[in-house]
Structures are given as C-alpha cells and as structure tokens.
C-alpha cells in the first residue's frame, strides 16, 4: 500500500507536537510485551522488516490514525501471524493454542537479548552505482499499489545526490515477496522550495534516502 495514511510528510491538520515530560520507555506492560514479541519474532525470518511495515500500512486509514503506536504493532503482528498460518483467529480469540503445528528450529533466547543490535541490510552490489555525489537527479512519479519508500512529497522532484550509502535490500521488492533485489541507496537533498513551493522557507533543505530505481538523471 503506498498512497496511504502512513505517508504523512507535509500533511496538515494534525495539530501541535506534544512532548510528554519524563516519558517512560513503555507506558504500560502490554506495550512492552508487544514490542518484545515483535523483536523476538523478527530473527525467525518469517517475514522481513518491510513486510512488517506493509502490514501496518494496509490498515484502514481511520484505524491507522486512531490506533496508538503499539496498537498498530499489535494489529500488524496479529495479521502476519494469521497470514503465515502460525495461529488462527480462533486461537487468538481463545487465548491458547488449539492445534499443533510446525515449530521453528531456533527461537530468540534470553541470551540473544544481551546484544540487541540491528541486522545489516547491505548486500553485495550487482553493478556499480549509476550516480555520484553532486549529480542532479529527478525522482520518479510513481504510485504503486504495493509498498514503496519513496514518499509522495518527494516524487517527480529534482534534487542532488549528497552521498552514496551502499547497496541495500530493496523494500519495494522484498515487501512483495519478490526477493531482496539489492539496490544502491543515496541521500538525495531537495531545497524546501522545490518540495513546498516558492513561498516556503528558503533556509530549509530536506533529504530522503532514495533507492536507485527511484531516480533518473536530470
């Protein structure tokens, strides 16, 4: 899902940013369990991080904006569990396992939690990068029905390559179950006026992390 509510950059009407004083890491115990379940299931490689994002993006917009952050994580996890056939809706409703099934060979252990580092998304490059720092590029005007990481506000806009970040797993492919299809990743910078018009603040620049297939030479 691409042109959905999760793509919030530049939208109006959400009100002021409200900071909570002395905010705890988790507000409730259930939030911490939802987070930890997501973390513990990740290394089992039953789905990718982008499929996880896509599951939340597919929530109806009204649900997406009215659910709290960890409620969205819960809904996304419940959905993937069911889609992968790990548990059925009847089992989630019953609160216990009603059927036996295939068990994973290895699960996330307390010892694994001693080092909670991110995995790497960098991969060997199938070809040299097409762009260099300093090149001007135009982002594509795309509106796929499937997952993408090119935000709407930065489509069909001219920017400048600032840095090459290596060759990474391509979300637009892996989220659709079409394999990692590694692509070069660039930091692309846009003047605020290119994105938001002549009247916008001239002292602002915005960058996105853009995969090579999003870009054409300007």
């Amino acid at each position, binding site marked *: *899902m691409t042109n959905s509510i999760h793509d*919030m*950059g*530049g939208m109006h009407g959400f009100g*002021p940013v*409200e*900071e*909570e004083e002395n*905010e705890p*890491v*988790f507000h*409730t115990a*259930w939030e911490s369990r939802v*987070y*930890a*379940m997501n*973390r513990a*299931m990740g290394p089992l490689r039953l789905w990718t991080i982008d499929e996880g994002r896509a599951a*939340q993006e597919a929530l*109806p917009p009204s*649900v997406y904006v009215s*659910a*709290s*952050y960890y409620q969205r994580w*819960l*809904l996304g996890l*419940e*959905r993937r*569990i*069911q*889609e992968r056939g*790990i*548990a059925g809706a009847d089992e*989630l409703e019953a*609160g216990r*396992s009603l059927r036996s099934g295939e*068990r*994973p060979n290895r*699960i996330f252990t*307390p010892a694994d*939690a*001693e080092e*909670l*580092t*991110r995995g*790497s*998304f960098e991969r060997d490059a199938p070809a040299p990068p097409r762009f260099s720092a300093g090149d001007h590029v135009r982002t594509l005007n795309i509106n796929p029905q499937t997952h993408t*990481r*090119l*935000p709407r*506000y930065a489509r069909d806009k001219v920017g400048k390559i600032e840095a090459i*970040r290596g060759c990474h*797993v391509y979300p637009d492919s892996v989220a659709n179950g079409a394999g990692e299809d590694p692509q070069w990743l660039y930091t692309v910078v846009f003047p605020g006026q290119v994105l*938001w018009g002549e009247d916008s603040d001239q*002292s*602002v620049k*915005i*960058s*996105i*992390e853009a995969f090579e297939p999003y870009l054409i030479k300007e």
Partner: protein
Amino acid sequence: MQLKAGSGICENFHYVSNLIESGTIMTSDGDHSHDHTHASELSDVQVRVRSLETVLSEKGYIDPAALDAIVEGYETRIGPHNGAKVVARAWSDPAFRVALLEDATAAVNDMGNVSPVGSHLIAIENTPAQHHMVVCTLCSCYPWEVLGLPPTWYKSAPYRSRAVIEPRKVLSEFGVTLSEKTEIRVWDSTAETRFMVVPMRPAGTEGWNEVKLAALVTRNSMVGTGLALKPEDVA
C-alpha cells in the same frame, strides 16, 4: 490489499472495531493515560496481547523469558545515555569526531563503553551555519541502539507530517529558536540508514571531562529538536 473472508484479515478488523467501540483505541498517539480507565478488569488490548503471547509461546515461537530480557534491555542498558557518551567523546577527542562522522557504526563500536551498534548508523554534526533534524515520515525509524526507543511525539502524526514542511515552527514548539541565517536540514529516514545528530558543544564547558559533558546531551539534542544544555542548566 483486498479483504477476503476466511483470510484472517476480516477477523482482524472485527477485533479492531471492538477496540474502537470499547474505547481501547484512542483518538491520538499521545493519549496513553486513558488506556485503562474504561475497563473494570483487563482492557481488551491487554487481553489480546496476553492471548497472542500465550499462543505464540505454546506453539514454540517465543520464550517469555526472552521477552522479559528484551524489555529489561530497553529499560536499562539501551537508551539516550549511550548517545550522550558518543557526543561527549566527539566533543573531547578530535580524532574520534572525524571517525564518527566518517563511519558512526564502527566508531561507536570501538568505544567499548556503550552498547553495541549494528548497521547503518550515520552521525551528522550541527554547526552555526547548519542545524540537523531527523524524522521518519513513513513510520518511526530511529537509532534505537544509541538513543533507545523513540518518544511518543517522534512517532506521532503531528511530528511526522510537519517536520518536513515547517521544521522551523516545529522547532519553536520545542523551544528552539535558531538564527534565520542557519540552514535547517531535515533528514527523512526513508531507508535502513539511521541518523543521530551531534549537537554543538555549549560555551563555558572548556576543560570538562566526558562524564560531565554527557550530562548536557539530551535525547532531543540528538534528534535535532533540542540543543545541548548549557552549564547553568545543570548547575
């Protein structure tokens, strides 16, 4: 995505409607305080989370003790105190500063006294001419390893929508007023690269050791919605 009967997704939406009707789903991300005020016993969401954990545990997919360890890690070891040590070192050690700006993952892992960092951390340095600010407009990407889990405001619709279109106004709501000549550079975390801001070292801290300096480095100053504290703020 199409809704198909029997796919589990409709059941999921049924769950969602129950959550909304029961008042468990709130009208804003920041409204956590009302989470459990409506329920006499366990709220729907608590029941659901408990069910999910029990089912996944019984089926052999999770070890509840590992969940405890993950939660404990984020409540104790992993948090913005790590990032503050990194910044204090960068302020104190010119060679480390260069290494950090070159390859933050490697530089942080070489420090030894902060929890380890995986791929792919990028440090960006504020100067009088340029102020950096980080957002994830599409979800909530954040450098967990050096800053811990993001605060609610970072994940909220107001911040995600406004940071890229009116960053100066957003900064003013955080009490940050910059010179009009200072360029504001907003980094939208749209991939698996993760950004931490190295704020400017405050005046009047000459000769301070790293421990004392780290106490000036707030979480917000490393996201770019704040500045480092001044010596008088911690006196």
